[in-house]
């Protein structure tokens, strides 16, 4: 497909997306009324909109959002870093991988969010248990992707470097590390959305800060619009994190054949 055709296709897709959004927002505003759904079940758009401004003034929405965003950022950054490091270290050593794989598998199967109450017992109603759940949940997809990528490096590429008398470090930095970039970013994309899940679960379980707290507070008050606002803000945080990963990915993987990034 040439550039012009791809551009036309992208414009068509964007226009259809926008039209869908308008239809969705209209359905949200007038649908519940038409279907006689009570506002405490599905509040119409205008109510949620009004609630958003009310929360800005009365509930410190900015602070709660900021706290959650900071926890997501910290959990995502540390979880990715540790996951990548773990992947590279296990990728370097077959023995370590074989020795640790049952435990890694067990931890991977264990539902990470179930650790949230435990972490709160350990660390109290601070930001740390939330960050820790996020770290744990982000760690695995990143680690597994990096480990699989290291295993999948073409041995002929390694032999090529060896034939030029490359040292172990040169092989890693010139062949293995760059080879793992595309799967690493695929892992980071998944991790960026999972970090939000980890943080929210932590906030739901305990504490009086963050959007997860607002969620359960709104639920306790039977304030459905507040729950909606909290969900929207969480989605916004996850979306920004995802877009940031994609922006960095495009810079790092600029050498890849043009892909349909718009398709996510």
């Amino acid at each position, binding site marked *: 497909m040439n550039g012009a055709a791809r551009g036309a296709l992208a414009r068509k897709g964007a226009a259809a997306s926008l039209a869908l959004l308008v239809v969705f927002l209209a359905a949200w505003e007038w649908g519940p009324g038409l279907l006689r759904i009570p506002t405490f079940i599905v509040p119409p758009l205008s109510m949620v909109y009004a609630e958003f401004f009310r929360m800005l003034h009365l509930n410190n929405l900015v602070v709660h959002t900021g706290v959650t965003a900071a926890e997501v950022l910290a959990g995502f950054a540390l979880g990715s870093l540790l996951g990548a490091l773990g992947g590279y270290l296990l990728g370097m050593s077959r023995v370590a991988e074989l020795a640790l794989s049952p435990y890694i598998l067990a931890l991977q199967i264990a539902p990470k969010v179930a650790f949230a109450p435990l972490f709160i017992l350990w660390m109290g109603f601070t930001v740390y248990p939330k960050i820790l759940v996020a770290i744990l949940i982000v760690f695995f997809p990143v680690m597994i992707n990096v480990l699989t990528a290291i295993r999948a490096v*073409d041995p*002929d*590429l390694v*032999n*090529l*470097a*060896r*034939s*030029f*008398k*490359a040292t172990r470090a*040169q092989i890693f930095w*010139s*062949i293995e590390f*760059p080879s793992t*970039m595309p799967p690493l970013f695929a892992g980071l994309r998944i991790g960026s959305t999972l970090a939000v899940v980890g943080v929210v679960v932590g906030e739901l379980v305990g504490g009086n800060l963050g959007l997860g707290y607002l969620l359960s507070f709104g639920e306790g008050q039977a304030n459905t619009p507040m729950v909606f606002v909290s969900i929207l803000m969480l989605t916004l945080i996850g979306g920004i994190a995802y877009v940031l990963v994609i922006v960095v990915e495009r810079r790092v993987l600029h*050498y*890849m*054949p043009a892909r349909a990034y718009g398709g996510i």
Partner: protein
Amino acid sequence: MPKVLRLEYRRVSMRFPEAGGRGSVAAIEDVSFSVEDGEVVSLIGPSGCGKSTLLNIGSGLLSPSAGEAYVDGERVVGPNAHVAFMLQKDLLLPWRTIAQNVMFGVEIQGHPAPERKRRAQALLESFNLAEFADHYPHQLSGGMRQRAALARTLAVDPSVLLLDEPFSAVDAQTRMMLQRDLALTLMRAGKTALLITHDLTEAVTLSDRVLVMSRRPGRIIDEIAVDLPHRDDPIARRHDSRTAGHVTRLMERLDIAPARYAEAGGVR
């Protein structure tokens, strides 16, 4: 003037452990031959006869079970700067530009940056790739990529090139162009090369000698000297009527007979 041996195999055997078993399989057995300075020798034989194993032993990536390989008179004990290899796969690194790929070997070997750039520039120009220096591999055709791989192989200035079916993945027309480029380059630079190929015509048109290997365990069962002119021009050799005779002999040695071979009482 005494003949200088660039590459030499002395009674080389290689056994690989059997998959899952305790025994081992002989891949090559008692192979001895040598390649003189500036000579191009092709190695042909059935699949799995250990041709690539010989090449890996020559490049120091594998150690033989018995016997030794020598490059420039030095015993091969590991990868060394005297040899460089090129495979069917171009092995270009997708995150490096063509120029950076050509410089890969010299970079690993720690040559200073200006020297690396100078060599890459000269090679890219001689392979008509200068305008693609800053392109990435995926933007190039298969033939261009393979030329870039050849440039990378030559950039480390090896005294021996080990080529493992370098052109078998490209289409027939591109292959002829690449063969011509390779022949010309080898002749001009006076390089020594060992070429593994399945293409008998390629073996005859590119080489000074062709070695025929047997089925596994691989042994050298025949050697023919290609006494034809134009080793730097495989297209011209293709037009030479004697080429067909050499190819026929190689086919006989590999037991590839025409269907009516027996009835006709032989090809000659």
